């Protein structure tokens, strides 16, 4: 691999890493993540926020959900109040995406609610698995890596 290519690669990689660092440091000012919202809830009180969590308990009488917020590590429990959504099929373990008004550190009034059943959510990842051998097969059927030039070359029958 010649020097021009290495320089170009380093240039592109440095821009990418720069963008990633910028996003990482600045995203809470534009699109705050769940953990930041809960750590600074005074700042977000009575404002509309988006939170993602896992259903821990369903109260169909009061139409509320108890959801665990934050995946890594769990940041605690938040009481989610939903007034419009039907919770008849909601079960503990389901994934929830909620957009609504944060009314206290432990409660949110949902404006929009997106509930994914546990099996349906897991199925996304299961469905993704066959893509790995499919993509590998398609790629290596057409291309091979030349260890001398450090480049991918088209296989002869696909030339």
């Amino acid at each position: 691999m010649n020097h021009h290519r290495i320089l170009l690669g380093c240039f592109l990689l440095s821009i990418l890493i720069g963008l990633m660092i910028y996003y990482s440091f600045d995203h809470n000012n534009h699109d705050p993540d769940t953990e930041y919202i809960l750590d600074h809830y005074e700042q977000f009180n009575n404002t509309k926020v988006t939170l993602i969590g896992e259903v821990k308990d369903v109260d169909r009488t009061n139409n509320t959900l108890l959801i665990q917020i934050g995946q890594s590590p769990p940041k605690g429990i938040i009481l989610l109040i939903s007034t419009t959504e039907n919770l008849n099929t909601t079960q503990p373990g389901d994934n929830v995406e909620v957009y609504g008004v944060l009314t206290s550190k432990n409660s949110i009034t949902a404006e929009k609610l997106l509930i994914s059943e546990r099996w349906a959510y897991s199925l996304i990842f299961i469905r993704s698995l066959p893509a790995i051998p499919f993509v590998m097969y398609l790629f290596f059927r057409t291309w091979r890596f030349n260890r001398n030039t450090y480049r991918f070359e088209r296989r002869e029958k696909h030339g």
Partner: protein
Amino acid sequence: MADWLTHSLVGWITGKTTKRDIALIVIGSLIPDLVKINLAFIWLNLNDHQFFEPLHTPIGAVLIAGIIAISFNDIRKAFIPLIIGISTHFILDFFLVHVHGGIKLLFPFSWEGWQYNLIRSDDYRMTIVAILAALLVYSIYWFFARQKKQKTRS
């Protein structure tokens, strides 16, 4: 996110119908989902501070495509199908339902997210449609290739 099988099948159909490099279009169609590296951090109970999120923006995916294209003899010929694949990914993800926000198409110039909110990401019927569409395209190409072969024989 749509699942990888749907993305790769849509990439395959695009490659087959546009007569471009199918393998690179399919690779491109999965590039934005490199953001899923964050799942490893979630699994390890580590906070990644959304460091990988720019990979799921057009600018981040294009930069990755550029880096990948460098490892091919003809950078331009590799870069274009990768970009086509990336486009199919964002077009598909654009139609997914989210409660708020969406794809940050103009990052780093704007943090606004765009979404059309048509298909739920957990809806497996989307994958079935993609499989059926891929089978249909495969059958059509197989039929015409067979006819062409028969004509050349006769």
